[in-house]
């Protein structure tokens, strides 16, 4: 097979294109800025919420979980998750870090499995200091309750995170259904 012979100018141009592509890839995927830190914080929180069916994967358990989970939230927070289940409308809310942790341990046994995928994560910073981040994204939750009910639903996630001691923590979090008969 004949080799490809390039003139020095073409070689230089090719090298420039490869270098520019590498820089672009690094810029978009590997740079560590506030927006990507917020996104990864969100994904870490989702990993805490997920639950694998018994006998598959690793489920987070133990006393350390409470502390680690609490670390995702501000001391005073505002969590609101509304929805419908078996004909009943519900709203789960928590106003403090302690309430979030206790709700987590109360609700988790009710689920056999839960997996959440995030999409279209939009992060914005209302001020130049980047001390507060506003997040909007879509989440798809799939799982099964202990009653054997399978569920799959999309939610709109709206969250406000604040930077405390160098860590991004949830100041507020809402997860509302994408489609609903209920206007409120």
């Amino acid at each position, binding site marked *: 097979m004949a080799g490809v012979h390039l003139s020095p100018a073409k070689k230089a141009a090719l090298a420039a294109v490869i270098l520019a592509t590498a820089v672009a890839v690094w810029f978009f995927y590997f740079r560590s800025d506030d927006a990507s830190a917020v996104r990864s914080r969100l994904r870490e929180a989702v990993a805490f919420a997920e639950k694998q069916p018994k006998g598959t994967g690793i489920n987070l358990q133990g006393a350390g979980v409470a502390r680690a989970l609490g670390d995702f939230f501000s001391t005073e927070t505002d969590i609101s998750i509304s929805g*419908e289940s078996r*004909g009943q409308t519900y709203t789960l809310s928590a106003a403090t870090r302690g309430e979030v942790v206790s709700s987590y341990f109360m609700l988790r046994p009710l689920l056999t499995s839960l997996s959440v995928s995030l999409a279209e994560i939009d992060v914005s910073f209302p001020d130049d200091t980047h001390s507060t981040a506003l997040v909007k994204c*879509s*989440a*798809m939750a799939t799982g099964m309750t202990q009653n054997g009910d399978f569920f799959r639903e*999309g939610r709109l996630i709206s969250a406000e995170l604040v930077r405390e001691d160098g860590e991004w923590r949830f100041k507020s979090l809402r997860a509302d259904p994408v489609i*609903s008969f*209920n*206007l409120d």
Partner: protein
Amino acid sequence: MSEKDPKQQVPQEESSTFVRPQKRTDWRVVCIRIGVIAAATVLVCLFILRPMVINGSSMMPTYSSRGFTFGFLPYFKIYSPQRQQVVILSHAGFNTFLLKRLIAFPGETVEIRNGVVYVNGKELDEPYVKYDCNWNLSRCEVPKGKIFVLGDNRSMPIREHMGGMIDRDRLAGVPIW
């Protein structure tokens, strides 16, 4: 005497044979063609004609569960949505969509009495609803920026049906069949 006619000296088969250059497969061209076709297919399937597997029975009997269709995604960049049109709505991300029927637009009122849908107080003729329905929904106005959608299968209780108000921005396209 024995000289032959020059025309006869030329062998017959030689005069009618084409000289074909031996074809060599240029694999670089083949690879480029395959790459271009693959890239075009991916782009078309992502942004123009998205293949979709229907999961769920909320649009029965118009669309059955495990059915297949293509979503024509640029549709609403060309045409305006029409009432009672089956539409594809973005649900979560770019991979999960809803298939619903468009019932009402912003500013219109919707009410359901004993399974009959009323838009702006007028009964909506819905020949595509084949199953018995006893839903009731008190009159509500569709807010600005929203649309009201329902599935064709209304045999389940209204609370178990995924329908109602949804952002108009979520209109993603139409199924092509």
